[in-house]
């Protein structure tokens, strides 16, 4: 088997002078895999996501992506290398229209280049979320939460990710929308994009992923396939 796409070794992360939030976390994510990451709030899931996406510098340990060391590169640089994140709470550029949101995510300043880049994935994006085509000229701030999450996902697709980090993609959304989001994740996986999906709601991820990590108190409490992590064992890992 070839080297993993993302290799995290002994990662310790914290804020300021405080106690680290993540202690010595190690795991690997293979090419094409959809890896689930679950845990209570406060377990360190979002911190891990921020550390992987370049928003937060690790105290020690190593993150390597496609064989290169990623420690300390900014978020924008990480995006350009292919690690794209969907932050928690469907955050979009609210003062801009849907179309403008998508244009910015193309990361170019020439209209023509932007158009070309968007056209390449247009079928995929509008095929998955026809509503976005309808709402093209609307301000993103006026979309519903679900539509904003779809816009987030569309934005991520345009950024041509190798690895997509999703932080609680179902949080605060209606079940129908969640269903929609998860079904599109499967199409993305089919299109060759690897994913790390964080959820508090483990059931949601369990049905979508092949392998799952349970995080508790900043440490990995359990790893395994969803079926191996059912029932009492999961409870124990989850609640401590």
């Amino acid at each position: 088997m070839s080297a993993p796409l993302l290799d995290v070794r002994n990662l310790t992360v914290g804020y300021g002078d405080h106690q680290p939030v993540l202690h010595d976390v190690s795991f690997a994510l293979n090419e094409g895999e959809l890896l689930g990451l679950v845990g209570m709030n406060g377990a360190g899931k979002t911190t891990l996501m921020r550390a992987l996406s370049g928003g937060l510098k690790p105290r020690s340990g190593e993150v390597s992506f496609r064989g290169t060391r990623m420690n300390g590169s900014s978020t924008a640089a990480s995006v350009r290398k292919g690690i794209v994140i969907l932050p928690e709470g469907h955050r979009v550029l609210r003062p801009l229209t849907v179309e403008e949101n998508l244009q910015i995510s193309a990361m170019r300043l020439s209209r023509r280049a932007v158009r070309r880049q968007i056209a390449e994935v247009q079928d995929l994006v509008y095929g998955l979320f026809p509503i976005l085509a309808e709402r093209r000229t609307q301000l993103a701030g006026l979309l519903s939460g679900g539509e904003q999450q779809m816009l987030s996902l569309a934005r991520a697709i345009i950024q041509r990710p190798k690895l997509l980090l999703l932080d609680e993609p179902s949080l605060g959304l209606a079940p129908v929308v969640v269903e929609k989001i998860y079904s599109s994740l499967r199409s993305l996986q089919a299109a060759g994009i690897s994913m790390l999906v964080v959820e508090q709601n483990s059931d949601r991820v369990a049905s979508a992923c092949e392998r799952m990590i349970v995080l508790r108190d900043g440490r990995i409490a359990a790893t395994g396939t969803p079926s191996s992590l059912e029932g009492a064992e999961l409870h124990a890992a989850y609640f401590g």
Partner: protein
Amino acid sequence: MISLVVTSLSQAAVLIPLVLAVSLVFRVSGVVNFGAGSFCVFAGTACASWGASNGAVGVVLTIAAGGVLGALCYAIAIVPAQRKGVPVIGLTLATLGFGLLLNFLTRTWFGGKPSIVQPWIRGSVSIGSYETSKQRLLVIGLSILLLLVMWFLFDRTLIGHNLAAVSFDHELAQVYGVRTMRFELLAWVVSGACLVIGGIFQASIASVSVDVAPTLLVLSLVGAVIGGLGSLFGAVGGAVVAGFVMTLTDQHIAAGYHLTSLLVILSLVLLVRPTGLFTFRGTAERV
């Protein structure tokens, strides 16, 4: 009446570039530029000196210098302090320090005396019974033109959208792949150029000297706050209001008390509508 309108508009015409500049860096870097007055004064004197033989050369050189100074201000006063995690008020002080350096340059290079930029068109026109210089009208026109250019930049171009993204949320802009530092720098360059244009306007219809730097600073800050510091075109609205308030006071209420009446308006606005008179949901965040 016509006199009131023309004078007010010409006051506003000078303030418009200034409030655009102040509001722009506030949105992108969260800093209020307390060196704004010094930028204007530098511009007025520089333009008068460099343009002594050829006005156009002076203007072009000065605007270029304004951009460079904006970038310098960002590089010297803002970036090192941001890296150190200095709070906003510290950054504001740093811009004040940069302004003092500019004052020093203005004094050493051009002397500290009041300077006048020769009007680009001579003569005067009369509207009804009111007579005014053509230059004054030209400045009003140019200011409106600048406004249009800025509107186009921010509303229609990808650069503008990127700037909007950065000022909305730095972290999220990074997630979108925007290299935020570059756009922040760009905002300072544009802001420097705008401040300089305001200074040239002022010097071409009145005069500037180092002593008026604080007044110009306060006028631009107050104008921007009245209209809405967080919104470019809200701030422009504030500049127009400020222009009218000052002229109205000078012509009809009590000559020589325009700053006082401006303060009254400012206090009222801050009490009643602290986000500014012309900020509305939807537009406020956009430009």
